[in-house]
Every structure is written in C-alpha cells, then in structure tokens.
C-alpha cells in the first residue's frame, strides 16, 4: 500500500512536500508546499466540492527507464506512477475527477539544454499526456524557464501560490 499522508487536524499548519513525495489533505487549515522545484514538476489537484486536495512533487518523466523495484518503492519520483497514485488516492477519499482543479509548476531547464537531456521539458510532456488521457483540464501552468519555483496549495480554499525565486508571484 502506498504511504500517503492524510491530515485531518483543524490547526493552521504548513506541510512541506519534498522531492519525490505525494501528500493529501482535507484539513482546511493546512497548506501544502513544495519548495525549490527545478526541472521536476509540482502538481496540485483539488476538489472544491469536498475541499480535499494534494500535491505531488516529482522529478523524472518515466518510471520505465528505471529498474522496476526502484519505481515500485519510489513511485512519487516519476510522472507516470506518481500521477496514477495521486489520482487513485484522491478518488479513494471521495474526490470527483470532474471537479478537480489542476495546477502545475516547474519543468525548468538549464540554458541551452538540448532535447534528449531536457528533463524539464520531458516532465512537462509526461504530465500533459497523462492529464490529456484522463481528460483533466489544467487550470494554470507555470512551466519552463531557468527559474526555481515554490508551489503552495491552501486546502481551505483551493488557492495556489506560485513563487518564482527572485522574480514573480502568482495566486491562482
């Protein structure tokens, strides 16, 4: 069984979602946050009807490039296995696919990073194709560039805050 964290306590709390982690919450006082996202992508999905959401912080596009045990023990490192586990977990706690508000941030690249090695771009493609298959619309995407980003999801109201280090801030 996947080890996902589900928080219930009604106290104001900020929970870090580290690299290669998925966290879900139904605590309206909780904010999930992924700090310093580079080429990886932070994905938030939120059901405003039942006020439940989560944040996945993955870094690689495809678990099939790894040995199966690695993918099995670290599903949240990868777009494919991470997103599948994320969808299942949301479904299990009662979220409806049709309601989901999806925000993605990250996928940065080193300057002049060429196609084959462009992990940020591949991560973006992987998310886009997964969400496309599941017919999930992206509410907001902040992808690419040479920036580090921080992504927050406020479980109380479903607001996302995307901060680009040294640059801008967007509330979506």
């Amino acid at each position, binding site marked *: 069984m996947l080890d996902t964290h589900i928080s219930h306590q009604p106290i104001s709390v900020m929970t870090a979602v580290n690299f290669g982690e998925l966290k879900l919450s139904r605590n309206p006082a909780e904010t999930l946050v992924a700090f310093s996202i580079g080429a990886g992508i932070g994905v938030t999905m939120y059901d405003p009807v039942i006020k439940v959401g989560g944040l996945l912080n993955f870094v690689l596009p495809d678990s099939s490039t790894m040995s199966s045990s690695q993918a099995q023990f670290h599903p949240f490192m990868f777009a494919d296995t991470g997103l599948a586990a994320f969808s299942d977990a949301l479904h299990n706690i009662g979220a409806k696919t049709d309601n989901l508000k999806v925000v993605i941030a990250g996928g940065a690249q080193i300057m002049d990073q060429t196609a*084959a090695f462009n992990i940020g771009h591949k991560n973006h493609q992987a998310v886009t194709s997964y969400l496309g298959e599941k017919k999930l619309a992206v509410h907001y995407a902040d992808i690419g560039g040479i920036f580090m980003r921080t992504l927050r999801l406020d479980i109380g109201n479903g607001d996302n805050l995307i901060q680009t280090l040294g640059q801008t801030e967007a509330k979506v």
Partner: protein
Amino acid sequence: MTNVDDIISGIDTLRPIPPVAAQIMALAEDENSSMSEIADLIVHDPSLTASILKICNAAYFGLSRRVDSVRDAIVLLGLDEIIELVLLNATAENFRDEPDGYGLGEGELWQHAVLSAYAAKILAESHGFTSQKHLVFTAALLKDIGKIIMGRFVAFSYEKINILVHSRGYSFNEAEKEVIGINHEELGARVGQKWRFGDQLIYMIRHHHMTDKTARDDPETALVYLADIICMMIGFGTGVDGLAYRFYSEVLDRMKLTEKDLQNVIFDTGQRRQKLDKLLYLV
C-alpha cells in the same frame, strides 16, 4: 563600483581549512597515495579523531556498537566514508553562514555543496573514475566557495545581473563577471590558491561551469560540472541563479552519458538527498 581587489581580500574572512584536512585532501588527490597514509594522518590528530568518532557514533550511521578508535571507524564504515566525513567536517563551518545575494535560505549553500559532492562521487564511480573519486568529491564540495564572498556584491548589483540573465541571455556567472568584474568560479579558484590547494583542484573549481571550451575536455572537471547541473535540476540548495548556467551536451557525449544514465543519476542523487538532512548537521 566595487574594486575586484576588495572582493578578493574578502577571502581572509573565511575560516581556513585545518592543515590536517588540507593534507588529507592533497593525499586524496594523489592517485599514488596509499590509504594507510591517510588513516595515519587522522589517527595522529586528536581533535580530528574526536570529531570523527563523535560523528560515527551518531545514530545516523546506525552502528551496532560504540566506535572508540579511528581504526575501528575505518573498519566499520570504510576508509572512503571516513575521508568524506573529514572533508565535510573541514568545510562545513564556512558554508553554514549563507551568503546574502543569492536568495539562499538557511544552510542551502551547504546542502547544495554536500549533495553535489555525493552526485559527483556517484558519477565518478559509474564512469570509470573511481580512483579520482575523492578529488571529484572535494572539488564538487568546494566549487561554490566563491559565493560565500561574492554574495553581498551580488546583492548590491542584483538588478543589473537580473536584467542580463533574464533579458539578454547571459548565464549567471557571465553576468557576475560583466557586472562585478569577477565571478564565483574565479573567486573560488583564488581561495584555492590562497589555501594552497593542488593545481588540479583549483582548475576544477575555476572551470566548474565549463565556460572555457578546453575545460570541457577534462573528464574530472566534467564530473563536477555534471553533478552541479544535476543538483540544479533536482532543485536542491539553488538560489536566484536557479538554472541560469549553460548546458553543454558535448560534455555528456564525451563522458558517454546517455539520457537514461542522466535520469539514473538524478534518481540516485534524489535518493541520497532524502537521507542527507541528518548528515548535514552532524558534521
């Protein structure tokens, strides 16, 4: 405008690496040195011995019994691990004071230094450079030491640097050079000269962003470069400079690093990262 000499004089504000650690670095750099020479150096330095024993006995290593001699520690953890701990212990103090200017939070420069050191070692071992792994580890650990001094000058000139990077296509180190007159690579190399590092280590620090075309042919420097860009992609301990450095696919080609290899190293480094937090404050 700031005088470059003023910036260079800032090197004196750093805490020099203890002599015994510098000797160990020099031996680790020398392919002909024997492991027992290194062990002898540690054994004969009481304060280093005390630090190493304290670190080894921390719960982090999960040893089943108490370690009370360096020989014992070497047997249980292996000399490689002990050498790495000596290197971390010798550099930690400087890196703990995070510099202004790069937008780094508490301890982030140190996190980046340590993670890239382990990434460089992973790369050295998987690409046929096992005998140089301590050199590569050390160079990756120290490559951004110039940032500690550069920070406040970067803070002072941040608007100008930001415009060059985000509107005119400069990499961050190119912009540092243009605006301030020196970049963190050059300053790091100056630190290395002052502290009498070996030539090869100084070279690797000086060229870790590979702006100089000839450096791209140097495999050890390439390992440090690759470790750095991997940590940038992972997004660990990176500041306002973010990923604003250049990618040279010819370096990966020359090192015969495929896309799959790159993803594997990112994965392994990511795994290492998850375990790193406890070690960072132990040394």
